[in-house]
């Protein structure tokens, strides 16, 4: 599907939204800088979707940068590595910044010199490496989807045998307003990203790749086009600036014109989606055997005087980053991630960066609204990229008619927030849907327990 706008042909999908001021100008011209090394890092064992990792260290242990401190548990899980060299101060449950629920974390204090652990940071040959070895490297490096969903990458790159994957789609859309970390990564490390993408292709064993970049990043598009001038298998395309352009369904619809159910995975239509950040992490892990211990984080918003893109070690306290970016005194909201899907933080003292943190958004004067009854204007239906009826869903969820919500496909909602953004009655639609999903999950779990008892 394509959309003709000002003479240019951009690829896109149906639905979605775009705020008039996307706030990207704040950090668009700020090249990445490395944040100063943190004194203490808090590394959560659950920085990914799936089973939490098992802590391998205990209080008093000396660890070095890149050392494995949390081992993956089960198939869908990921390793966790020390991001600085030092002493393990404690292994204790702390509130996870993404959910607020307490989860085990390893606290490391920097006492040693910042040197890599033995075995890491060695250059290896990436031309002759086998797909199995690539997957092993990715798995041991603890790489997860860095676009924000944090799905373990080695699982994503191990599709079932009966599914044929023909294309790797790389997401360079960065559709969330305010964030520019992927933009800067693509600007600074295009060669590395493309090598990472090729490694992912080799790992799956497919020949084709398609890169999608939003049209507000035309410089990146031209850069990639130049690099890939004589590669016919890797296509680069511009897409319309629209949220959620970078979501799997919308990306695949825009680039490959393939559709699949919201409850299905992209491999149903022969595609695998990876983020540019993930591709870069894959390159680092395979070429240099460097585990995932740092990432680019955009610290932005009107609540910081010096918005910036920082290369940050995982587990760095957010306070330190905010001080670096000169936080204002009268802020009202700090959000992890972008404004659409980000998670507001309740306690800045315990908030630390995790693998999925692409941005920290600091806002002054965030408004609070009174929500009203649905006026059935239908704007949410127009904006829903998954073709759901958010109006009906919000009403049924508010009445706690969860069975009815289930009939209206509440489980197909990806909580992108377009409906809530456009709602003139300021209804907390996504919150209502999240509530219904949690309750339905609880009821299903209860029913399974009951049927097992019988």
């Amino acid at each position, binding site marked *: 599907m394509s959309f003709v706008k000002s003479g240019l042909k951009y690829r896109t999908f149906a639905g979605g939204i775009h705020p008039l001021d996307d706030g990207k100008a704040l950090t668009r011209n700020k090249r990445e800088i490395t944040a100063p090394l943190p004194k203490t890092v808090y590394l959560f064992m659950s920085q990914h979707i799936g089973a939490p990792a098992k802590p391998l260290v205990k209080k008093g242990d000396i660890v070095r940068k890149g050392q494995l401190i949390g081992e993956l548990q089960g198939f869908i899980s990921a390793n966790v590595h020390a991001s600085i060299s030092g002493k393990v101060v404690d292994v204790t449950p702390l*509130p996870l910044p993404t*959910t*607020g*629920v*307490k989860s085990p974390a390893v606290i490391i204090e920097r006492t040693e010199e910042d040197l890599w652990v033995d075995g890491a940071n060695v250059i290896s040959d990436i031309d002759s490496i086998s797909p199995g070895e690539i997957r092993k490297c990715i798995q041991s490096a603890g790489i997860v989807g860095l676009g924000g969903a944090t799905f373990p990458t080695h699982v994503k790159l191990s599709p079932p045998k009966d599914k044929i994957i023909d294309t790797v789609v790389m997401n360079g859309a960065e559709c969330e307003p305010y964030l520019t970390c992927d933009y800067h990564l693509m600007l600074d490390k295009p060669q590395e990203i493309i090598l990472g993408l090729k490694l992912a292709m080799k790992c799956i064993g497919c020949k084709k790749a398609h890169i999608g970049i939003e049209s507000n990043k035309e410089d990146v598009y031209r850069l990639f086009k130049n690099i890939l001038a004589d590669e016919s298998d890797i296509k680069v395309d511009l897409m319309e600036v629209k949220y959620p352009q970078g979501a799997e369904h919308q990306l695949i619809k825009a680039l490959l014109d393939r559709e699949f159910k919201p409850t299905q995975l992209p491999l149903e239509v022969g595609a695998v989606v990876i983020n540019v950040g993930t591709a870069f992490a894959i390159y680092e892990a395979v070429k240099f055997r460097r585990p995932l211990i740092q990432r680019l984080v955009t610290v932005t918003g009107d609540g910081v005087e010096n918005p910036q893109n920082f290369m940050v070690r995982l587990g760095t306290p957010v306070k330190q980053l905010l001080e670096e970016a000169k936080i204002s005194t009268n802020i009202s909201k700090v959000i992890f991630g972008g404004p659409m899907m980000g*998670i*507001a*933080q*309740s*306690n800045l003292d315990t908030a630390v960066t995790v693998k999925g943190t692409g941005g920290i958004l600091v806002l002054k004067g965030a408004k*609070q*609204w009174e929500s009203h009854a649905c006026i059935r204007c239908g704007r949410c239906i127009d904006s829903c990229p998954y073709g759901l009826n958010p109006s009906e869903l919000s009403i049924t969820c*508010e009445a*706690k008619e969860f069975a009815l919500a289930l009939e209206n496909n509440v489980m197909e909602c990806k909580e992108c927030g377009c409906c809530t953004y456009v709602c003139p009655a300021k209804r*907390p639609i996504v*919150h*209502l849907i*999240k*509530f219904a999903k*949690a*309750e339905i999950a609880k009821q299903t779990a209860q029913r399974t327990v009951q049927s097992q008892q019988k």
Partner: protein
Amino acid sequence: MELLLGAAITLGILGMVFGIGLAIASDKFAVKVDPRIENINEVLPGANCGACGQPGCSGFAQAVVEGKAPVTGCTVGQAVVAKLVANIMGVKFENRERVVAVVMCHARGVKNKFTYNGIKDCRAANIVGGGFLGCDYGCLGLGTCVDACKFEAMYMGDDGLPVVIRERCTGCGKCAAVCPRKIISVLPETKMVHVRCKSLDKGAVAKKICLDSCIACKQCEKICPYDAIHVQNNLAVIDYNKCTSCGKCVEVCPNHTIIDFAREQSLAMYTVEV
């Protein structure tokens, strides 16, 4: 006249034929319903609360007759209904203790972590950042349990905590089921001593969060003559099978976490009289 007579006779004959047909059919295809189901249904409270685990009151009545549910299964009707159901079924009825809901939290001086502006439902609030309350285990106070009560046996007190009217409570357990933090327990009415805290935080941490929290000092454990109270995971837990509600632990509890309902009630009456 002739026309009228002909019509009357035809209709009369038709009516007789259909009447006989229906009479035969109703006898031949009759659905045999156990009269006991109907009788039991009549003595049940009719709230369709589902506390018995059956789909409504008629479902329970059928289950009793089929032998799938005990005659004492109706928690709402308690002893009165159980006796009537037992009579209908012609079995001996053993008295079951009356149970009531108890709120196991007495949050006092707990600060909020952040301003919550979302849906007014504890379950919805609990999934936002792990709940807005400073205590991870305490009552959020949005009244989901009160909304769930079908017998108007609960109300939100002045201190923001739900209050159970023990006389009206039927022990159906609906409030306990909807509470996202599992603060409400359904316990025998005769049990008067309760630990009103669910915090598993360490003593020093819990004390800072809430004035009435259990700090796991083990004073209660030491004084209990019946070995009925034990500190597990930084929280005093009463074994209600052993507890006699003697109230010794209430006296030693430094944070007034453990309370005696009997004493509270008499105290309340006293203040009212004065």
